[in-house]
């Protein structure tokens, strides 16, 4: 993502900002409804669901702000000798940290209660300087989350559960395509399309859950 800054058309940074902002809103909505449910039930996995989507949402806000910043200042930096990469890098790195915590909390939600109770300290890896490390960890965590989600979907045969599984699969594709962005900018565009589809799927699930 950092390497590509010069190769992506400027207008697409605006589009990605909209995508990240929309994903953040969807994430905050999931978090809000999970919080309401947690307040009523005091159920630990619901607390993890609430915190994970809150943190993922904050990560997407950071990403949206970074992209808007690139969109509004890239022309200036292109015409000057100042490098934009450092600012861009900090924005993405902050997103990596938030997003990683979010996925770790989501994974905790699916862990058996006995294991979950022992994991009271969440280790935040600081070595996410490399986007490859971050995406790889996200993929591994999402694979576990998807397996649990598929098991739940098969058990329940419930359309809302299918929507959640589909959303997590879209997130997995999003991270997988982002790893490949250094080969083609089409991957970057494709990744963002999968991201917005994933969060739209979560929004649809929320609408069905609350207004059906």
């Amino acid at each position, binding site marked *: 993502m950092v390497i590509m800054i010069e190769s992506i058309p400027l207008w697409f940074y605006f589009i990605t900002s909209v995508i990240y902002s929309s994903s953040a809103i969807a994430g905050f909505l999931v978090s809000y409804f999970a919080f309401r449910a947690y307040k009523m*039930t005091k*159920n630990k*996995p619901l607390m993890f*669901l609430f915190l994970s989507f809150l943190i993922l949402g904050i990560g997407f806000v950071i990403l949206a702000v970074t992209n808007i910043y690139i969109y509004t200042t890239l022309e200036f930096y292109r015409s000057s000798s100042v490098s934009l990469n450092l600012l861009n890098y900090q924005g993405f790195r902050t997103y990596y940290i938030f997003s990683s915590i979010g996925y770790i909390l989501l994974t905790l939600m699916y862990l058996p209660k006995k294991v979950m109770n022992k994991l009271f300290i969440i280790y935040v890896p600081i070595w996410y300087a490399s986007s490859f490390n971050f995406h790889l960890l996200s993929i591994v965590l999402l694979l576990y989350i998807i397996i649990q989600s598929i098991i*739940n979907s098969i058990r329940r045969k419930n359309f*809302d*559960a299918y929507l959640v599984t589909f959303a997590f699969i879209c997130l997995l594709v999003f991270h997988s395509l982002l790893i490949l962005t250094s080969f083609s900018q089409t991957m970057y565009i494709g990744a963002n399309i999968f991201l917005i589809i994933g969060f739209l799927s979560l929004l649809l*699930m929320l609408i069905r*859950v609350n207004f059906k």
Partner: protein
Amino acid sequence: MSEKRSKLQIFMDILFLIQKENGKAKPTRILYGANLSHSSLKEYLDDLISNGFIEEVKDNKHSLFALTEKGYQFINESRKIKRLTEAFGISI
């Protein structure tokens, strides 16, 4: 093997059952419908009354338990919670 029901789950089972019986149900109907022992039924009904979700009413000398407005609201909220937790595969 089925999992042990949480207190909230039992609350929900009792309230859904009363709602299914048009908002009023006899204790024996609740006892069998919610699959509870006599002693635990009394405990849960007392809890539900003290939370204001149900009230005891008399109907032809029979004692019935009826849903209150707060009880209906709780059912509405807990249905949403149930759907959300089922979608994510969380057991409550």
